[in-house]
């Protein structure tokens, strides 16, 4: 493994259930040392991508490597990857201290002291059965357990989705502290873009089981502009740039474009775009807004 090895590298990665592709033709690279946000509507394949990277799922097509190794391929590979699954599953009847002991017995580089410190700072009682804790506390326990493994890559699947805003802030705070200690690459999936904006510097956007965007957030934002202009023919723009989304009213046209150079036509007024608007534009381009709304209300995937 060289120092240039990517944290996660996928080539043509796909997973099919019956006739439905949960993830298709996914090629991406996440460099080490970043906090990458994985966004997309429900059912876009976020959980599938993370599960493939942990080795919980086997791919139908393509490959994925984490730090240059096949997922879950032996104890060393497992030790380097931390994972907090959706709904942060834990053994409800066991106490927090039991979970820490469980982790100590199942991991060679276990750092139980820091986990205990972290949890006591959050006033989470170690002798309480995990089933009696609140969702926010349970998520903190799951994160502390995973950090105690001292992983090199941390994969978090919607860990904050079920938490109230304060618990969410605490959780992301704990995560940011762990990242600040260095040497950690994080992939965090969420459909809450505002949360990602707080901690992430890298973005992967999945929609319709495919990767729509992948890269450094600042660089991506620099490449995108909102163009506002009169209602007129847009073929010139479409030829020179990639139009993500177009909205037309009676008098004007608003477009989100990915630029391939300066916009020559002075009729168009270019403005910076925010992360949330950019993400929503890509999701909206993928499906009519009303349908996107419906999928968001539908079941978890």
């Amino acid at each position, binding site marked *: 493994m060289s120092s240039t090895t990517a944290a996660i590298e996928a080539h043509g990665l796909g997973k099919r259930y019956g006739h439905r592709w949960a993830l298709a033709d996914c090629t991406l690279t996440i460099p080490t040392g970043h906090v990458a946000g994985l966004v997309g509507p429900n059912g876009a394949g976020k959980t599938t991508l993370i*599960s493939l990277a*942990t*080795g*919980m799922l086997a791919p139908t097509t393509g490959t994925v490597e984490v730090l240059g190794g096949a997922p*879950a391929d*032996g*104890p060393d590979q497992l030790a380097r990857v931390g994972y907090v699954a959706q709904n942060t599953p834990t053994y409800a009847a066991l106490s927090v201290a039991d979970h820490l002991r469980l982790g100590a017995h199942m*991991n060679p580089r276990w750092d139980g002291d820091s986990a205990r410190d972290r949890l006591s700072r959050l006033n989470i009682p170690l002798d309480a059965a995990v089933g009696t804790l609140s969702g926010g506390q349970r998520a903190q326990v799951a994160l502390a357990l995973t950090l105690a493994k001292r992983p090199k890559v941390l994969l978090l699947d919607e860990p904050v989705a079920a938490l109230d805003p304060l618990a969410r802030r605490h959780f992301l705070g704990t995560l940011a502290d762990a990242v600040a200690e260095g040497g950690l690459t994080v992939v965090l999936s969420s459909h809450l873009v505002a949360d990602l904006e707080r901690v992430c510097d890298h973005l992967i956007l999945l929609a319709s089981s495919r990767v729509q965007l992948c890269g450094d957030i600042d660089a991506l934002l620099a490449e995108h502009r909102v163009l506002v202009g009169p209602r007129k023919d847009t073929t010139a723009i479409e030829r020179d740039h990639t139009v993500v989304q177009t909205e037309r009213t009676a008098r004007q046209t608003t477009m989100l474009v990915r630029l391939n150079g300066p916009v020559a036509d002075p009729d168009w007024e270019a403005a910076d775009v925010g992360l949330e608007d950019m993400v929503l534009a890509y999701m909206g381009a993928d499906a009519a807004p009303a349908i996107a709304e419906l999928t968001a209300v539908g079941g978890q995937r």
Partner: protein
Amino acid sequence: MTWVIWRQYRATAAIAGAILAAFAVLLLITGLQDAARWHAALASCAKDGTCGNLAQTVSLGSGLLTALTTLTLAVPLLFGMFWGSPAVARERETGTVQFAWTQSVTRWRWLSAKTGWLLLAGAVFGGAVAGIVTWWYAPLNALHQHQFTPVYFDIQGIVPIGYAVFAMALGIAAGTLIGRSLAALAVTGGVFLAIRLVVTYWVRVHYMPAVTTIYSVTQNLPSKGAYWPLVQGVVLPGGQLSTSLTVGPGYIMGPLPIPASCPAGQDQPISSTLACMARLGYRSFATYQPGYRFWPFQFIETGIFVALAAALIAVTFLVVRRRDA
């Protein structure tokens, strides 16, 4: 991993241990009483020479205790349904498999530890129950010589260990394949009962070719020890076999009428009727498994169930290795 398994199962293991201890104490007390009664009966019958019909004069055990020991037939099933089937299925249902399989322990090792300890627990608990029951049955076996017949055979010796290991493996495999512990529990129960019934009543008898003997109607089957009777009847004077009549010293049973020329009735001693039948050419026949085959049969049957368990565990490993969590 040992600690992990112990932490998950210590509460139920303690309950099982407590039940086992209570059962052992009960059988120890009543078993010692039975043994004392048996030895006293032997000593007194030796004095007046009536040891031939001890089975009629001595009563050992009790209906309740016999029922209780017979219920140990279900012990392997309990292991399979309540320890085996949730072993993997419960972790999948609650999602904790996502935790367990992403620690620095491969699935293969996790499953090895879990199945290894559970199978060992099944063998140890099943063996303990069987050991106590076998010891308790010693006086009754000596008196009734019935340990080779079904049900008595199934709760003594080493076969209960084979059943316990098989039930545990069946539970684990069903839980892994089905993924839902309640459904796996039901399937484990059904499949275990079906296989046990088929083996007991159709397969076991073929482990070794049965022996057929023809002997005088005035005698008992000339086979020593606790044989397993399969077919009994008479050879008619013409040479045909009939199972509609079985006779022996002191009894004539069956719908087939005894020959008219032989005296029979309330006032006639059975021995004279039998002597008359012997003169007419009637003989007894019996097909049976001789008593000295008890242990060979125990080993064969245990081997079959351990082999089935091994196949189920192999399937479990393949499924866990390949299947998505």
